[in-house]
Structure formats: structure tokens, C-alpha cells
């Protein structure tokens, strides 16, 4: 069974799905760290914001974004298998989930942008 995941592209995509959780965790930790810096005051928070702009951080985020998008897609892709039996066709469940998450992300982006506009001194 050694190297079984190299036998078929399907397995490779599965392994990538499982590995994507590492990036999700890293994302979450970076955000949590930002929250902690925010609690410590404006200076530390500004430092944290600045650290996000370093080349290393930009490289990580450039890689993490597609991986997290792939993770989100696989999450909805398996949804028809994990939900209790419904009359909805599987494709509708997947499409609905992807659409809902895209809408939530867009709404969040707009809200942050809006809030940013108003909070500028």
C-alpha cells in the first residue's frame, strides 16, 4: 500500500484536501494572533498589520488562498453524502453551498470595506 495515493489522480486530490487543513489552521492562528495584538493596543496591532505585508507573509497567503478555496469547494462537494437523505439533487446541494459561501464572503468583504470607510479619522 506504500504510495497508494499516487495510483490515481482521485487519491491525489483527496490527499490535497486532507493536507489543506494545515493551511486552514495556519490561517486561523494568524487571525487569532492578530486578535491578541489588537487586545494589546494600537501599536502591537499596527505591527501585526505590517507583518502581513512582508514578502514571506504575502507568499504564504498567495499559496494559502487557492488551497483554502479548494478546501471550501471539497467541503461542499461531499455535503450531499453527509446530509441526511433529502429530495434535493446532489448538484443543487453543492451549488447552493458554494453560492451561499461566496455570498457570505462577498458580504463580509463589503462590510469590512464599508466599516473601513467610516472609521477613517
Amino acid at each position, binding site marked *: 500500500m506504500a504510495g497508494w495515493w499516487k495510483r*490515481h489522480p*482521485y*487519491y491525489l486530490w*483527496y490527499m490535497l484536501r486532507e493536507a489543506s487543513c494545515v493551511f486552514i489552521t495556519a490561517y486561523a492562528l494568524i487571525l487569532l494572533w492578530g486578535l491578541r495584538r489588537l487586545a494589546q493596543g494600537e501599536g502591537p496591532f499596527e505591527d501585526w498589520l505590517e507583518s502581513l505585508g512582508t514578502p514571506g507573509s504575502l507568499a504564504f497567503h498567495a499559496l494559502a488562498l487557492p488551497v483554502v478555496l479548494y478546501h471550501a469547494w471539497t467541503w461542499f462537494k*461531499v455535503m*450531499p*453524502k*453527509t446530509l441526511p*437523505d433529502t429530495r434535493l439533487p446532489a448538484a443543487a446541494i453543492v451549488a447552493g453551498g458554494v453560492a451561499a459561501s461566496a455570498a457570505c464572503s462577498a458580504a463580509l468583504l463589503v462590510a469590512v470595506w464599508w466599516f473601513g470607510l467610516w472609521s477613517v479619522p
Partner: protein
Amino acid sequence: MTRTIRIECLRYHPETDAEPRLQAYEVPFTDDMSVLQGLQYIKDHLDGSLTFRWSCRMAICGSCGQMVNGVPRLGCETFLREFWPGTVRVEPLEHFPIVRDLAIDQSDFLAKLESVKPYLVQKAPPAGENTNLQAPEEMQAYYRYSKCINYLLCYAACPQYGLNPAFTGPAALTLLHRYNADSRDAGRAQRMPVVNQEDGVWGCTLVGYCSEVCPKDVDPARAVNQNKVNSTLDYFKHFLFPRAKEKS
């Protein structure tokens, strides 16, 4: 039009061979010939010692599952023309011991199948009736899963079964669900221990390839994963009401 295709078969006669090897045959074929018919041509005209299973040659008996170029498929439903001018490599289903050439030993699966009680544990009919009637919606709850006839392609597709042969596996768990989901059945309490064990539904990591290769669109991954929910509910039920009498 007759063309010629190269079919490589895995050969292994445990009494004489130290280990399995591939043997190639040049087989003339027409557009309507399946991989199974290719094997039959070899057996009839080129090499009578080649061993493989088949019966219905119309995708309903479940005998002819093989690895065709590394993918679990039914030999009788896969056409040679798909591979020409390339080669077809036919091997026995992955993860099972070989009895001889392409024939595998299914005993492990059969024991697991038996453990899930794949039959109706009859519920007493309502008072005054002598039979359990079933509404069309009640039939829909299990119909899809009842189409499983043990081709075992899903076991060959399941890396978890390959890594841990104790895993109950897709088809047995699907048939377990088929009977649990049947409104006429009273065997749920007897089957839940199989669902709940480490090697029951929790052995599945939702790779999902089993559903992909299933020729009858049974969707075993769905049956298995719905039972993760059932198993969790069962756990909490026992946790909250340890002395509750088991109902079906």
C-alpha cells in the same frame, strides 16, 4: 472492422508461480467487444489456462469486477475500443487475495456481509394486519442502496480497506443501511454495534472513490457517512439514557 489490441493479464497460479506476473496477448476485436469478451477470446483461442470469473455478461451478476488499467471496472461493461491503439492491462481487484489469475478470494467480504444481517428482521405487522405495507416514500428511503449486488469494485477503490482490512467497508455498510432504512425492518439494534465500532463507519475518511466507481450508482460513501450521524446520535442516546431499552 476487426482490429488487434494488446491485452496484458496478470497471471498467478499459487501452486506453481513464485509471484504474479503480466502476460501479454494480441487479441483481434470488433467495436462491440468488451474486455470480458477479450478474455474469453484468449481462453478459447490463445491460452486455455487463463482463469477469470463471469456469468451474466450484462452487468447484473457482479462476477467480472477487475482492475482495468488500474481502475476497478466491470469487464463486461468496458469496451476494448476505448483503449485501442493503447494496451489494456487487466488485473484482479485490488486489496483481495488472488485465488488464481484474475479470480479473487471474497471470503473476507462475505464474512462482513453476514455480520450486518443483510435481510429483513421482520417487524410485527400492525394489529389486525398480517403484513407490513410500505408507502412509495418509505421505499425511496432504501431503494438506491438495495441496488448493491456486491461487485466489490468499491472495496478495490477504498484505500482505507487496503490499509486496514478489518474495516467493514463500503458495500457491507451500505447493505446494513439498506435494511436499517427499511420501514418493515426491526433489526436496527442488532446492527448498530457493527456501525459504531472503530472498524465500522468510523473507519471511513470519505475518500469517496467508492461512489465514483460503483456501476449501479448506489453511492456507498453516502450510506456510510449518513451512519456517522446515526452512530453519533446512538452514542449520545446511550450516554444520556444508559438504561434505556433498545428499540428498533
